[in-house]
């Protein structure tokens, strides 16, 4: 009879990627809330969707900064260079492994339904609309609707007495409620269809060091990985898709070891 300890070891061995991911997601949350140390705002752009108005944020939101640069008329060299570096380092891996709002999506991933490919281009539309609105209205319009800002700024400032229950607060709560319901009904709903930061990082998904590797000789096309993918992809067919957040759920789901997470240069597909 196997002991409890042996079972725990087996479980941990099977779930090692999930455990590692929970660790980096925890680090992402910690990086987002380092303000408790009193270090104040830094020059760092956060590699995910994390509101700079959050009372404990020490990093700048890439989408908020992008809008401000458009409003202020600053050519975004620093911003674009940073995004390119993040894109090279992990692409959408930041969505799966680091982003605090991605973590919230992850925790509410109950229904892993198939992705609607056409709707997944919605995040690019949101990104373009964010850029266009910032230019046309000379204002950070996306911030006023952002569900991450709802969680990280509107609610905290309500408790500190800076915010009140007013129209902007209710709009924030409305978008948050919509996105939360979406997350519960469709796993990673925000990351799949609407996140503008996901749209930005998706541009770099195929050139990032962090990537998913498929050993086609081992793959039996059993689709066990498909049932595990929170983004609703078929990893054995779409392991390089712009929607892949490289979370590794499919790697754990594959009993034949055909899928693996790799970091570094890619080899030419055979």
């Amino acid at each position: 009879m196997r002991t409890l300890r042996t079972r725990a070891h087996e479980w941990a061995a099977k779930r090692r990627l999930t455990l590692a991911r929970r660790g980096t997601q925890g680090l992402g949350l910690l990086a987002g809330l380092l303000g408790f140390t009193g270090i104040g705002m830094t020059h760092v752009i956060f590699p995910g969707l994390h509101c700079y108005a959050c009372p404990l944020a020490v990093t700048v939101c890439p989408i908020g900064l992008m809008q401000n640069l458009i409003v202020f008329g600053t050519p975004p060299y620093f911003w674009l260079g940073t995004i390119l570096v993040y894109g090279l380092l992990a692409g959408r891996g930041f969505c799966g492994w680091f982003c605090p709002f991605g973590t919230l999506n992850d925790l509410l991933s109950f229904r892993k339904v198939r992705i609607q490919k056409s709707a997944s281009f919605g995040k690019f539309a949101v990104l373009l609309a964010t850029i266009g609105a910032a230019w046309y209205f000379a204002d950070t319009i996306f911030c006023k609707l952002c569900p991450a800002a709802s969680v990280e700024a509107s609610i905290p400032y309500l408790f500190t007495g800076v915010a009140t229950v007013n129209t902007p607060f209710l709009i924030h709560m409305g978008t948050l409620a919509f996105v939360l319901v979406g997350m519960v009904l469709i796993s990673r709903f925000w990351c799949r269809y609407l996140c503008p930061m996901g749209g930005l990082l998706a541009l770099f998904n195929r050139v990032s060091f962090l990537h998913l590797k498929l050993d086609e000789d081992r793959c039996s096309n059993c689709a066990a990985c498909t049932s595990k993918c929170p983004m609703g992809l078929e990893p054995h067919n779409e392991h390089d898709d712009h929607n892949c957040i490289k979370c590794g759920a499919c790697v754990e789901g594959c009993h034949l070891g055909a899928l693996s997470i790799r970091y570094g240069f890619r080899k030419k597909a055979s």
Partner: protein
Amino acid sequence: MRRIVAGAIVILLISAIGALAQKGGVEEVLRFTTSSGSVAIQQGGQAEIRIDVANRSIYKAEDIEIEELVPGTFRIAGDPEPIALIDAFSSEVVDLTVEAAADAPLGENQATVEIYYTYCEGELCFQMTDSLSLLLHVEPGLAEQTSSQTVLPTGTQTESTTPPEDPDIGIGPTAGRIDRRSPGDLSGWQGWLIFFGAGLSLAGVLVANGRTALRRRSFVPLVLLGAFLLVGGILFGQHDQARSIGAVLCISCVGIEVAQDIHRAELSTSAVEALASLDEKVHLVVFSAEWCHSCPFAKEMVNQMAEASDRLTYEIIDVDLEPQRAIDAGIVESGRTIVPAILREGSEDVVFGTERLERRLLELLDVRP
């Protein structure tokens, strides 16, 4: 084919972000509109026209003067009072009386108002010239008859005929294009080319490498591109700009409250009466930023309160220019400076934002309406 489309999207997206950012959303400082469509005016008569002047930029506009009307068959009656100052994200109205000559041509006429104003970016000030087109429908009338008529809005808007992104600008004796970029920055087409090049490089890597991408040969140009943009950005001080954008929080900008219009900053009668009972000298410090949407409202409200009571004085601090004052005064909530914030000097009592500002300011002053 899909890869080429994806590459094209990358080029377009990165070029668009760069180009729009260079262009800036607030290229025009002031926007002039009139709610009147075609205004009826009799030969030798007069008509009143209301012009809305809105400042959509992050800068203050000063000395706004409406001076000329062309062609000469129309003229501005009287001498319209110049507007001394329009704060960022604020607006004013100007009522013009337009007079038609006795021999003004009958029917639809177009007349153009010349407008002059100044705005400053730090120590650099720009004198701007803009124009607004008016549609005047001249009707027959006796030369000696002077009629005054206000025409109801027709629902159509007549906007400035000068393209907003291309106003004439002069600084000192030299006229030139508006330059809202940091000193030393690449401007115009050179900057746009950089972004186009960045998008092209990235798209090239995506397309050339097929479905599985990053290999050694594509690594070098990408890293060089990233390094070039990062170092360039840091040399231009954009990392400091990023930090300052995060460090000062305009609460109406992130949707914590609605940005208030300066015209709604009208002190109630009961508040004026209550301020008369202020029995001790109080000094308020208003912390604001030039780009903050609600700050003009807060400043105007405090200004009106100071006018209502001799015992109330105030000063305005720009937190971008004097960050230490904000830190010293404790106008920092959870690590970031919040604007607008109004501090009662000598106490730690602060009012953040502009929601129910009159009532909260009266409470700050310990007076009851």
